[in-house]
């Protein structure tokens, strides 16, 4: 966790609460590919306020997940920097993954306890916390079940409980509901909304779904296609606590429409669609090499 340790040392918790929680300056990430260095992200500049629910939308492969992985300390940036203001002494961040990534060999309860068992060691109130989050997410009856016996929605609840039980300063969510069906997805959004309004913390939430972004977020960031940088920023004006009824309102639809217009022109380059570019001839250099 070298990256996290470096982040810790930037500011030992002396800053005022009005400072941004996360400051991103010229952040870049490149990947090595068979065709050379590929820039996946950046340069990206962003400030995330303390306690803010920030949603990031953008086309596939725009580097959203890369950004989140940098924030989680799973990837080092290749340029620029990301600084996080540390307030507590607990875990800095926890992540909810798109494909759940809960362990099939652990029961629901063991999965939720995982984050407390590793790292700094189990806190004294570990059992209480596990019990609380199992209850809070409606998992108590399944505590001894294996993930293979659960539905997709239940698995994602386990993943959320696993992240929240460590009480991270920042919660990172990478398209957490993408694998769920449309109805279940709405139910989970409602649940997350209620949950967050009860336990406020800084959240960076990545999604493809504009409806989801507007319902949950305080602010929605639109990213361009690769290399991803910010092309739009929308404050979501609806007051908290919000409820799922918001979906039906005209303002909600209008904001969603506005974000979509921005995303379509800036990120998907709608202008290009009118005059399609000349088809590129794929260059194959190896037997199994993907043509790009």
């Amino acid at each position: 966790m070298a990256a996290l340790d470096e982040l810790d040392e930037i500011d030992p918790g002396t800053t005022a609460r009005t400072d941004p929680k996360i400051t991103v300056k010229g952040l870049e990430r490149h990947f090595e590919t068979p065709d050379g260095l590929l820039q996946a992200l950046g340069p990206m500049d962003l400030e995330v306020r303390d306690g803010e629910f920030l949603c990031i939308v953008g086309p596939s492969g725009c580097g959203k997940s890369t950004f989140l992985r940098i924030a989680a300390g799973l990837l080092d940036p290749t340029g620029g920097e990301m600084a996080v203001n540390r307030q507590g002494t607990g875990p800095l961040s926890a992540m909810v993954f798109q494909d759940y990534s809960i362990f099939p060999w652990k029961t629901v309860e063991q999965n939720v306890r995982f984050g407390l068992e590793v790292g700094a060691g189990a806190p004294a109130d570990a059992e209480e916390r596990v019990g609380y989050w199992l209850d809070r997410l409606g998992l108590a009856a399944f505590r001894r079940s294996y993930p293979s016996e659960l539905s997709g929605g239940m698995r994602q609840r386990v993943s959320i409980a696993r992240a929240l039980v460590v009480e991270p300063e920042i919660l990172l969510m990478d398209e957490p509901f993408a694998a769920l069906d449309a109805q279940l997805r709405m139910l989970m959004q409602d649940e997350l909304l209620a949950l967050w309004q009860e336990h406020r913390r800084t959240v960076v939430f990545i999604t493809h779904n504009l409806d989801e972004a507007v319902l949950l977020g305080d602010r929605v960031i639109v990213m361009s296609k690769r290399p991803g940088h910010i092309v739009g920023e929308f404050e979501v004006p609806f007051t908290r606590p919000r409820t799922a009824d918001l979906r039906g309102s005209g303002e909600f639809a209008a904001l969603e429409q506005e974000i979509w217009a921005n995303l379509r022109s800036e990120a998907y380059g709608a202008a290009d669609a009118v005059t399609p570019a000349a088809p590129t001839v794929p260059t194959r250099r190896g037997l199994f090499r993907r043509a790009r």
Partner: protein
Amino acid sequence: MTTTNDRPLAPPAPAGSRIVFAPKVSLADRYRRNARGRRIDNALRFGVPIGLLVIWQLAAMLDLFDRRFFPSPGDVVESLGTAIGTGVLQEAALVSTYRLVVGFVVGALVGLLMGFVLGRVRRLNVALDPIISALYTVPKLAMLPILLLIFGLSDLPILILIAASVFFIVVISTTAAVTAVQKNYLEPAQCFGATGLQTLRHVVLPASLPSVFVSLRLAAGNAVLVLIGIEFVQGGAGMGYLIWNSWQLFDVGRMYVGVVLVAVFGVLFQTLITGLGRLATPWTRRGGSASSH
């Protein structure tokens, strides 16, 4: 095996006709048919081997083939009785079991340990992989004379060879299983700040256990092969020696006793390991819940 439609498709109906999809069999009949299907499966599973034995016995009694070379099942059972009566069989089985268990346990433990290390330390794997591949290809039996030269005529060369045959299978599959642990299981561990050992215990070990047990089972079968091969040529005791010695004495019945018992032995050994594997990986059992604790 149930197919989606158990009847051949009807010829295309003429235009304008009404095509009806309705049950062809009543639910009760369907249930009865499935139950009957399961009974047939079980009858085949046990009936065919028993039937073959009966045919063999009848053919022998009718003198359809030379009973000197192909004794009847009855003759084999008789030889079994004699072999047990004289105590030859128990002694051979005991010696072979000891060699197999000691060799297998040592080889498996070293193989597992090294497999996990090689799987986690990429550079070490890069360095040692060619050597392991090269040694794996050497037939273990070919090493016997060299080991006999070094260690003399004791049990040690036999144990070393069995352990080596187990080791290579286990180390190669364990390394592969560990390197194949999916990123989406390793990332949460890294994310929650797990140390190397914690990652091993909570993620890498359980994730690779199912394939590790498959390799242990393969290694168990292979260890029996190697053991019998060694005992043919060296050892002066054990099941392999019993078979070879029976051939030399032209005791055909005892030869068959030896072969059958080795087969039974191999099956039992593999079943034991499969059973241990099922105990160790409760989450792979269908609908299996964790026992309350």
